[in-house]
């Protein structure tokens, strides 16, 4: 591991926070299905994905801790909506099963490609964590890609719902690749993957699968990162409620 400049450290902290926040909220949304999924097998499978995503988020926050000494629980439970760095994609309500699966599929493809690229990071702990998470992410991608196909090529109703989900989710998914102000120093030093290169791999990958499923990605402008919807404050009120109610408690 090389010595990091302060700019490089800041770039790493920023990206780790973005990754953690995305996975934290997506995990939270996915877990809302636990006990309410369309089939019992999906109560199990989606709960598994939710645990993996939460596990990744915890891993990124642990890595951040090694850089700035921050407390993972403090970051998760005591920041306000304006401090969260997630993409709005991950804060949107769970919607119907098609919405959840299309969102998860597009995110999984992004995450798997990001992790694949991050294996080459010159920051060894990040490269190692990415390699570990990638193994799980490949399973997610397989699972959600199969669901998108099943729903898109199922009944007229499931096809209609899948199209509507793709329409709604697509601009937010594009926003995942928007450059982060302050990340450039990390990209130039080979610490972090370049999001534009990830997007160049992601777009043909998901377009090919969607096309196989008879779906067409809509033409849309990306929703920039840093833009939050009204859903985030509500989500955090629930997510953080118990923790904040007992403000002086540090051990749960």
């Amino acid at each position, binding site marked *: 591991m090389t010595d990091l400049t302060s700019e490089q450290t800041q770039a790493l902290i920023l990206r780790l926070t973005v990754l953690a926040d995305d996975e934290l909220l997506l995990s*939270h949304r996915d*877990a*809302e299905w*636990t*006990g*309410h*999924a*369309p*089939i*019992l*097998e999906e*109560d*199990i499978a989606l*709960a*598994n994905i*939710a*645990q993996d995503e*939460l*596990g990744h*988020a*915890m891993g990124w*926050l642990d890595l951040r801790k090694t850089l700035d000494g921050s407390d*993972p*629980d403090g970051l*998760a*439970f005591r920041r306000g909506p304006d401090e969260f760095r997630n993409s709005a994609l991950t804060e949107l309500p769970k919607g*119907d*099963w098609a919405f959840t699966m299309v969102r998860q599929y597009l995110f999984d493809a992004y995450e798997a490609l990001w992790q694949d690229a991050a294996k080459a990071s010159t920051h060894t702990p990040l490269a190692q964590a990415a390699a570990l998470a990638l193994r799980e992410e490949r399973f997610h991608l397989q699972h959600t890609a199969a669901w998108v*196909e*099943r*729903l898109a*090529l*199922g*009944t007229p*109703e*499931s096809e209609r*719902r899948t199209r509507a989900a793709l329409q709604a989710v697509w601009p937010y998914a594009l926003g995942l690749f928007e450059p982060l102000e302050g990340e450039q120093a990390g990209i130039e030093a080979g610490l972090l993957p370049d999001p534009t290169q990830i997007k160049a791999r992601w777009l043909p990958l998901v377009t090919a699968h969607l096309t196989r499923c008879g779906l067409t990605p809509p033409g849309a402008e990306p929703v920039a990162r840093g833009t939050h919807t009204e859903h985030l404050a509500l989500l955090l009120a*629930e*997510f953080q*409620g*118990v*923790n904040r109610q*007992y403000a*002086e*408690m540090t*051990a*749960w």
Partner: protein
Amino acid sequence: MTATLKTQAAETAEQHAAFEARIVRGEKIEPGDWMPAEYRRQLIRMISQHAHSEVVGMLPEGEWISRAPSLRRKLILMAKVQDEAGHGQYLYHAAETLGAAREELVDALLSGKAKYSSIFNYPTESWADVGMIGWLVDGAAIKNQTMLAGCSYGPYSRAMVRICSEETFHHKQGKEMIVQYAQGTPEQRALAQDALTRWWWPSVMMLGPHDKDSTNSGVMSNWGIKTKSNDQVRQEYLNEHVPELLELGLTLPDADLHQDADGNWIHGPINWDEFWAVVKGQMGLNKERLATRNAAHDDGAWVREAMLAYGERQRAQAAD
């Protein structure tokens, strides 16, 4: 299911004698083996009730996944509730080995015809309930399931072995949480005590009516389905849990609780009126739990239709 029962309508004394001899020898009965129709009926009833309990049991604790106060607790709770779904799944499979169809069993739950453990009709009012359910409710379940792991029907017995090992993790995480809170800040301690006060009696009751009032117990024990009585299992549960709770300085809501000369913990009178009122849905959240299950089932109908249609399409393409 009905067809299987009809073909076994004529049962001979020889068949019964041979079957009971196998039970006495401690052999496991396997799906293809001859068995009395009543043995099959009792097992389907019991295993499906057990499966329903796992599925409905996801709800009271699942409600708290979104509010768990630390990342570690959130992860543990997700894993725990996921396990309950898994238990439900392989118990439905165990019932299927007896000729029952999962759809029929699920329909019986959704229509309110089938029963599930009434403990899940109690509300979870605070975060500490998650810990208390793990420690007490799963603790009681483990006692019952350890007994069932020795039961005469192979698939049920093996399912229990697997379930017990996972339930042991549930029990541990619940106990660890409550021990931490009981020794934590005054507020945490109050949360733990409040949860104990509300969950103590329901957990004592969930092991079922006293032996003298238990209608199904005779035949179940003769056929090696239940190898211990409700009161025996309840005694094991009390003897393990009472001293551990008292050691934490928590108060059990039973003024008559005492130890007898043999060291057994003896509880005071149980309010069976409450037990039956909860079982019958006159008290507690039976209607709400079934409404939630029905809503999930109805909302998922279009997804299941899509799965079937997609499957048909794949088969048609493969045939071309």
